[in-house]
């Protein structure tokens, strides 16, 4: 029996399941994700690659929330100008978030998409989880 596929089936592969990497609160309320490798990804991804991605994300979020001279200076300047300075300037946090978005896009293109996976930026889930969508492995073999 010949299988008939519509064009949409090839353009949008079906979602098989989703894996959620939860937050790690052992160091307090800073944004940090668990580096434990989920079992559902064992067939698709290297443990080391996954840990590297999550660790880089954790480091980037730590950079965003870093307490130091520059962040205090930004806070004091904002207070003195009655917070109107943020109408024309981006906060340090927002700059790092853009960096994170670029990093995730880069990782998706290079590592995750070829394996039928998709990383969702945690900011779209309220910084609660890193959502990894696992697509069905139907067409990957034939497409190569």
């Amino acid at each position: 029996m010949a299988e008939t596929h519509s064009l949409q089936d090839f353009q949008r592969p079906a979602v098989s399941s989703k894996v959620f990497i939860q937050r790690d609160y052992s160091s307090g309320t800073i944004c940090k994700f668990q580096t434990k490798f989920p079992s559902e990804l064992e067939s698709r991804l290297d443990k080391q690659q996954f840990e590297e991605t999550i660790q880089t994300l954790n480091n980037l979020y730590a950079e965003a929330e870093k307490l130091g001279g520059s962040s205090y200076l930004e806070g004091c300047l904002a207070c003195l100008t009655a917070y109107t300075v943020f109408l024309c300037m981006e906060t340090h946090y927002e700059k790092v978030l853009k960096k994170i978005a670029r990093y995730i896009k880069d990782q998706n293109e290079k590592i995750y998409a070829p394996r039928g996976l998709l990383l969702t930026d945690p900011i779209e889930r309220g910084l609660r989880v890193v959502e990894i969508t696992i697509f069905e492995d139907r067409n990957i073999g034939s497409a190569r």
Partner: protein
Amino acid sequence: MKNCEYQQIDPRALSVSPLSAQSHTTEKKEQRPRRKWEVFPGKNRFFCDGRLILARQSGVLPLTLGLIVVTCGLFFAFDCPFLVKHLTVFIPVIGGALFVFVVISLLRTSFTDPGILPRATPDEAADIERQIDTSGSSTYRPPPRTKEILINQQVVKLKYCFTCKMFRPPRTSHCSLCDNCVERFDHHCPWVGNCVGKRNYRFFYSFIISLSFLTSFIFGCVIAHITLRSQAGKSLVQAIQESPASVVELVICFFSIWSILGLSGFHTYLVASNLTTNEDIKGSWSGKRGAEESGNPYSYNNIITNCCVTLCGPVPPSLIDRRGFVPPDEVIPAASSASEMELPHFSAKNDVNMEENCQDFSLSCTA
């Protein structure tokens, strides 16, 4: 022969009308893309196309603004001319600067997102549900779900929020008035008409501090005004009769100073020890549990560091993305009846959702 009045159907009309009907319906279905604030599930009001957010019950915010504006107006109109003549021109300048700072802080506290956490997507909720052991049947209310974690070597209990369908991060609390989980929840302030949380706590603090200065300044200036007037050979009563507005200001300032100064002192203590009003009231870290060591795990044990972190630390952006557009194929949780995944046991839970919320809230009050 019967006259059947048969009208021959024009095939061209047939071919044209369904298409036009289709395009008409597609035009109807193609509504303008909606922004996320329009489908926000919490009890909030939005202004300026999602740029400003306020609680649905704005409380007494108009009263707060009115009192501040009226008092300062009376001060500038009736006391300042006399004081400028007899003392210095800097009095209205300082008063004006304080007034502007107070109003800006108040508006920023009221209209800023306090740190609302968006609700879990259906997939996330199902994943969490799978990880929890549901041993009870659906007929009786399951016990409140908690998860224990270690923060800085101290055990902290995370509660499951039945409304937002997720485990609340530490220091997060669900505000029943706004129906949202708020990060680093301090309290819901009716004077300001909004919750006070992680993102607007510094605005709230600068509001009450500047308001203390403003009320003390106006109080002092009005006392000076009346004293100077009565010293110029007139009695006190005569001085008051010449400037009745000063009495109004005196009364307002007198009653405000006690409460505002007290509140400022309390919040200064909270800032210095990196606590929230919620934690202080519940006594989470006050060591009520006897021999168990329960200090505040979030404190840096240094007053200056605690102050800097709370007031000058980096501001995270709003997590609810009010002005983003709702993707056209996304299923809106509130409106939809059929979600992507089959979750039969959720329907039973929705019936007892309200009850669970009340139970959860009452437990959080008594804990």
